[in-house]
């Protein structure tokens, strides 16, 4: 397009333009052309699969076997499936507990990093590593640290006198859930800390100084000055993180594979086991789609919240 323009002879004062270039002078046509690749890709690989997923979930398609319409039979089936119910409960628990810890620890770390000290840039760069390094790869390091026979964590706890025997971190249903939560918190804290730190840095230090001069103790300064100003960033970070955590897959897949005895399945890992592992595409799609109402709700809250912030 630009080449066509460059190759046409140019008259001084009134540039001559090719048909495409003049069409693109119209804002509406230009916008359409610029948005076309994005709309095609997102339509083909987000919108289309979404409807395909809805279609799959109301048929009884298996791998290689075209399905027939079965209505809500798949949803009925998973609703009465004990493992699915465990997965729902696990997902809610996992999302809630990790979010609370990530927010609390992330905020604490952000407040620590918001001070001036030597090597701050260095520390900040290193602290983000758990978030940068591919999750699956770092989770393997954790799996190795949790290994019942060779666990370094057991060794430390034993040497400190906390335990007398071995702890089977990933072999016991409750401990396995706790282990998964620990690793998720470990991976998520840097993201919270760095995002909240960016929020903290936009708060003018003069506000704190003013509050300090008025005699407000540190916790009051935090509660009445820092926290209200940090709330918009916090909201967005939490909503993003809730979506990611709710739909998490890799951590559980690597650490426990949903075991022991299906005790640590989340929506996504169970959908994978049913849809890909056993080839029941429809049922797997139905399990994935069961996440949708919650995700939808979070997205709506986020959109409303952003709109409210923008209008204020």
């Amino acid at each position, binding site marked *: *397009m*630009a080449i066509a323009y460059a190759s046409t002879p140019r008259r001084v004062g009134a*540039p001559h*333009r090719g048909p495409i270039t003049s069409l*693109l*002078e119209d804002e*509406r046509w230009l916008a*359409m052309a*610029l*948005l076309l*690749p*994005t709309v095609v*890709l997102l339509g083909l*690989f*987000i919108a289309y*699969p*979404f409807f395909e*997923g809805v279609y*799959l979930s109301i048929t009884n398609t298996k791998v290689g076997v075209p399905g027939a319409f079965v209505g809500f039979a798949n949803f009925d089936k998973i609703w009465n499936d004990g493992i699915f119910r465990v997965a729902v409960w696990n997902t809610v628990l996992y999302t809630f507990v990790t979010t609370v810890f990530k927010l609390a620890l992330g905020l604490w770390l952000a407040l*620590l990093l918001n*001070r001036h000290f030597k090597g701050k840039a260095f520390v*900040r760069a290193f*602290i*983000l*590593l*758990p978030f940068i390094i*591919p*999750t*699956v*790869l*770092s989770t*393997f*390091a954790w799996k*190795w*640290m949790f*290994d019942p026979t*060779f666990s370094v964590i*057991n*060794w430390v706890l034993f040497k400190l006198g906390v335990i007398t025997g071995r702890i089977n971190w990933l072999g016991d249903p409750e401990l396995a859930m706790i282990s998964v939560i620990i690793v998720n918190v*470990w991976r998520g*804290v*840097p993201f919270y800390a*760095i*995002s909240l730190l*960016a929020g903290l840095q936009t708060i003018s230090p003069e506000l704190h100084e003013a509050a300090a001069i008025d005699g407000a103790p540190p916790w009051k300064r935090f509660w009445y000055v820092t926290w209200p100003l940090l709330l918009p960033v916090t909201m*967005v970070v939490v909503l993003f993180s809730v*979506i*990611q955590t709710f*739909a*998490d*897959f890799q951590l559980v*897949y690597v650490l426990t594979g949903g075991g022991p005895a299906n005790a640590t399945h989340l929506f*996504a890992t169970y959908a*994978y086991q049913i849809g890909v592992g056993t080839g029941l595409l429809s049922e797997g*799609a139905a399990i*994935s*789609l069961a996440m949708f109402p919650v*995700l939808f709700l*979070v997205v709506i809250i986020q*959109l409303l919240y952003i709109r409210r912030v923008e209008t204020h």
Partner: protein
Amino acid sequence: MIEGAKWKRWVFFYIPLAVFIFSLLFPFYWMIITTVRPDAELYRPWNAPNYTPFWTTRPTWEHVDYLLSETLFSTWMLNTMLIALASTAISLFCGLLAGYALSRLKFPFAGSLGTGIFVTYLVPQTLLFIPLADIIRNFHLGDTPWALILTYPTFLIPFCTWLMMGYFKAIPKELEECARIDGASRFKAMIYIIFPIAVPGILSAGIFAFTLSWNEFIYALVFLSSPEQKTVPVGVTSELIRGDVFFWGPLMAGALLGSIPVAMVYSFFVEHYVAGLTGSVKG
């Protein structure tokens, strides 16, 4: 500044910060030490008297050697690199154009399109992987790098668009108008005046997109099946474990080497990465 007595500084600042740093970085130390630890030491139970977790007296390259000569690890690295670069390039291209259109042009449905793209940003991969696998099969893209090169942009484009919109909004309209008065077409003004100013934003979006593609797991796990097509995260997961047997030495070597490209890109562009990260959540 840090206020108060010296002990307060230790209790409320240095000690908590040290604990944070230690716990966040220890797994990486564990990865490194396992990589160079010989098998004889590796498989010594934690309650054995000669268990020395934090160091090794006989470091070895045997696990790295095994990984590079006996497995397809270098192929996976190349695959991952190719897929990450290609999907990042596609996403930057799309995100740059879409971001410009949404932030600087007036056209019908601009608002709802912007919201639509934002909403796709929030769609997790795990919601769609089963129907998408079906579609990939129907398009005959299964088990090829294209399956990932074309699908990764679905979670990268929204982010790139969003970030670029923020950058474009900050550039004054007058700059473009000046160029247009001088005879440049709208398209040329965009390419030669606006895009060069947005280079830091493009860099941030690109680095963030690259690390996200390198990290992606479930699409790669589901869409690829033959060992020589796999990416690093999937190859390490599926090929270095035989049944219930984990080859911990090569596994940790793979985790370590597989993290290096991302860590390198990150270390060169920390500021851009952080700008991308915080830009992605500021909205």
